């Protein structure tokens, strides 16, 4: 896959002296869903703002579809649709008018059929004549997505698209995003919801304190950094672990009724076989066992803590 966005040595220092981005290098592949994760103030929105033309970079270069965002801004920007984090809408305009305005702003000829399709895809068709001020928060969010899609962009930036949106609507938006990807749109998503990235992204980037900490294929990331946990539900409660099991670093929980063992799936040996053997030798029996994979959230928290 080729890069549709290429960020090279990008830095941003605000007038106050705060360094929001520090030498960021990042390539977004055409057609992928890329999730950019990071805590508040990590630089996610600054990075998006620079790529979209809302903020000026201090240093570095950004290419969108091979076009420099500064010297060839018309071509670069025409490829991008942006849904910002905040709900910025023209309160007194109708849904149809504001979406049509966005299309015109991007230099596209009128195409009522396309606007109709976008509004129908986002379940906004029956609200097309309503003033935006009368819509709910979730609907306003969808209006903003409709505006971003009005000019048929190849790239869609979704900056915290489901912040403050209820679970049902969030899942509805995920469907919309998947459909867009199937139609060939590259999607860059920033989110606080790890489950959102886990559910949707092909690749994940983690940004912290203005630096890209990691960019990895989601499945590889889960596999590489993921840890598994073996939980053993014991037949009888233990007061303490026998000396022979100390080196496994087991956790004795639930008042001695549960044993927990964390192991690394990428390691040469997981230690499970020998643990089970040593438990049998020690005369410890169990009724049931289960294993769980650590979530992306655990991975993210680990990364941010150590970076």
């Amino acid at each position, binding site marked *: 896959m080729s890069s549709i966005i290429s960020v090279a040595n990008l830095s941003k220092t605000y007038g106050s002296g705060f360094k929001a981005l520090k030498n960021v290098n990042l390539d977004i592949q055409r057609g992928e869903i890329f999730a950019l994760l990071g805590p508040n103030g990590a630089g996610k929105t600054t990075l998006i703002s620079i790529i979209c033309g809302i903020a000026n970079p201090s240093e570095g270069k950004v290419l969108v579809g091979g076009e420099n965002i500064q010297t060839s801004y*018309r071509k670069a920007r025409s490829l991008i649709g942006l849904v910002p984090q905040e709900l910025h*809408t023209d309160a007194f305009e109708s849904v149809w008018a504001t979406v049509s*305005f966005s299309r015109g702003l991007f230099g596209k000829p009128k195409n009522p059929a396309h606007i109709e399709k976008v509004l129908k895809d986002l379940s906004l068709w029956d609200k097309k004549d309503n003033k935006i001020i009368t819509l709910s928060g979730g609907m306003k969010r969808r209006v903003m997505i409709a505006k971003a899609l009005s000019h048929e962009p190849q790239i869609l930036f979704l900056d915290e698209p489901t912040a403050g949106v209820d679970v049902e609507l969030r899942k509805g938006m995920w469907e919309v995003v998947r459909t867009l990807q199937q139609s060939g749109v590259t999607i860059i998503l920033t989110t606080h919801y790890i489950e959102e990235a886990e559910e949707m992204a092909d690749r994940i980037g983690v940004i912290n304190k203005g630096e890209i900490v990691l960019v990895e294929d989601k499945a590889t990331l889960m596999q590489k950094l993921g840890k598994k946990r073996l939980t053993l539900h014991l037949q009888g409660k233990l007061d303490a672990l026998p000396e022979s099991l100390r080196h496994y670093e087991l956790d004795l929980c639930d008042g001695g009724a549960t044993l927990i063992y964390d192991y690394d799936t990428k390691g040469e040996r997981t230690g499970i076989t020998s643990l089970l053997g040593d438990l049998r030798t020690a005369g410890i029996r169990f009724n049931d066992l289960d294993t769980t994979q650590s979530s992306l959230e655990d991975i993210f928290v680990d990364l941010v803590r150590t970076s």
Partner: protein
Amino acid sequence: MNHRAIRAIYLFEMARTWRTLLQSIVSPVVSTSLYFVVFGAAIGSRISQVEGVSYGTFIVPGLIMLSVLTQSIANASFGIYFPKFTGTIYEILSAPISYYEIVLGYVGAAATKSIILGLIILATAGLFVPLHIHHPVWMLAFLVLTAVTFSLFGFIIGIWADGFEKLQMIPMLVVTPLTFLGGSFYSIDMLPPAWRTVALLNPVVYLISGFRWSFYEIADVSVAVSIGMTTAFLVICLVVIWWIFRTGYRLKN
């Protein structure tokens, strides 16, 4: 050039005018009519003539300028300030549109509204006093030049303002007094010599003088100076706007 983007901004702004018709058009027309009643009829009846023109007729160009100046500034400053206030400016900044195209859209719409308003006030004035325009082309030229120049000035105020108070401050504290003192209701020849000199420092004097000349061929200063001063102000506004977009002042971080 992104013609469609200019058109989109222009029509979006004009749509706001029609949506707020009462505030945009009707209100200034009512205010102007009141000026005619107070200054034209009540006070004007005690003043015979000013430089051969009846007082009611004499104040028409000044009244039109008063509205065109204030409305140009108000329209343009609000037009660009409101997207900044609501945050929808993100869309303008991220669109494939150049700075001069943004200015053309916003300032074009603001100036259009002011020109329409000026012509409506002219028509309204015709109901109160007899009017004869000696140089209609020059009258239109002055009207357009003033509307565009002060819309540019309003655009600058809209960018500069970071609150509604600042948005009102320059128009209320600077422009309105300058307009009242700029010869809207009198010829500066009516002032004592010392005050006449002071009045010549007021740029609005030149606008009103030139505009009045296009109506009645009477002027406080020469027409060439009027055109020169207005054009100079236009150029200054253009330079300031060029600098704003070049630096991203109050628009981009």
